[in-house]
């Protein structure tokens, strides 16, 4: 099985469309799953709940994240109905960290086998081949263009890469993903309305609005924060890249989809890439197909 897996700070995605939050917590004894919607994972004698609540990683060093093994294996196991899955995978790291982390992340999986149970079903994942590709660059391979700047906005990082005639010629990573924005908005709303909102709650609030004590409240300032954050990202990118002359500015990532309306105000020719949240994973799968098919 060839799979592209984008283990983002916020969500883990694979090219087949499997998405879950990149968080895990120990399962409580006698825990009841009321909606039967949790991912119960057995790993090295411990039971975990993946993708619900928990601590997410706060640095870009994905090769050393403690949750990487479990999240990657969960993504593969969720996709496979086999008891033993021989996997060939392409993973991603932030583009500025690519040279540093590539081999470390590869060595973490290549030639190894892991046992995992998903919702009580035991599976073995054998990593036959592992490759690592830069985030943002993966998304480029889902678009039918040769010249483009890809802006990939994730939870922690914003990866920007410039392609000329199909080749990568410049890249940068900015630590201005949507988690920082969500923290700012949560802080602002909690301060204003004495609420206890967390970063994870913000995306839904921005989408559906907020009720406090049964009353809809005005969160216009939160939208202003979102707009301001986008302007900050674009201004930083403009210092390093010539967005005006490049024929295609492609927006990718879950954060990219969320901030696209504000980006469009700044860069009129920006285009949202197809399936922006899965674009990297799909591009990684194309790399895998090129290498191993």
């Amino acid at each position, binding site marked *: 099985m060839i799979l592209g897996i984008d283990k983002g700070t916020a969500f883990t995605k694979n090219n087949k469309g499997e998405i879950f939050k990149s968080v895990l917590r120990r399962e409580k004894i006698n825990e009841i799953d009321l909606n039967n919607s949790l991912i119960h994972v057995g790993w090295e004698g411990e039971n975990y709940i993946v993708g619900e609540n928990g601590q997410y990683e706060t640095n870009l060093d994905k090769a050393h994240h403690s949750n990487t093994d479990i999240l990657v294996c969960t993504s593969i196991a969720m996709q496979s109905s086999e008891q033993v899955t021989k996997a060939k995978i392409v993973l991603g790291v932030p583009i500025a960290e690519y040279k540093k982390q590539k081999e470390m992340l590869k060595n973490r999986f290549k030639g190894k086998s892991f046992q995992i149970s998903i919702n009580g079903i035991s599976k073995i994942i054998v990593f036959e081949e592992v490759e690592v590709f830069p985030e943002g660059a993966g998304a480029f*391979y889902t678009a039918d263009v*040769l010249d483009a700047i890809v802006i990939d906005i994730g939870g922690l990082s914003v990866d920007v890469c410039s392609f000329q005639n199909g080749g990568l010629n410049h890249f940068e990573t900015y630590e201005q993903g949507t988690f920082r924005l969500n923290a700012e908005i949560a802080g602002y709303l909690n301060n204003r309305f004495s609420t206890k909102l967390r970063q994870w709650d913000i995306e839904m609030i921005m989408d559906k609005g907020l009720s406090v004590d049964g009353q809809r409240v005005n969160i216009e300032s939160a939208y202003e924060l979102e707009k301001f954050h986008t302007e900050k990202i674009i201004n930083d990118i403009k210092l390093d890249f010539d967005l005006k002359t490049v024929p295609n500015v492609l927006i990718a990532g879950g954060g990219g989809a969320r901030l696209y309306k504000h980006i469009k105000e700044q860069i009129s020719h920006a285009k949202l890439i197809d399936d922006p949240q899965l674009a990297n994973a799909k591009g990684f799968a*194309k790399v895998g197909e090129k290498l191993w098919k």
Partner: protein
Amino acid sequence: MEIDPKLIEMLPRENERIFTEVEAYIYIKTKGFKSENNLAKCLSWSRRKVKKFLKLHNFCTENEQKMNNENVENSTVYSESVQKVSKKRTENGQDKKQDGMLGILNM
């Protein structure tokens, strides 16, 4: 003009006698012609009469027919070459992207 199949059956065998204009019309409509010379031979007409008749009934003359055929051939060749160029362009584009992909993997 719809042609009655009975009329075609009634047509005399080629070169047996001189065709009337109606017979010639049906003949050309149903069988077409390779060349004006050949048609003249089949109808037992002079080449000049054939030319005049073709013009009168708005049939394509030999030259016009040739030009049409050439145009069709040319347009086929043209569309094939356009397809080849665009295929080549796509292949080149894909090649360039794949080269770029390998370049990144070797970073």
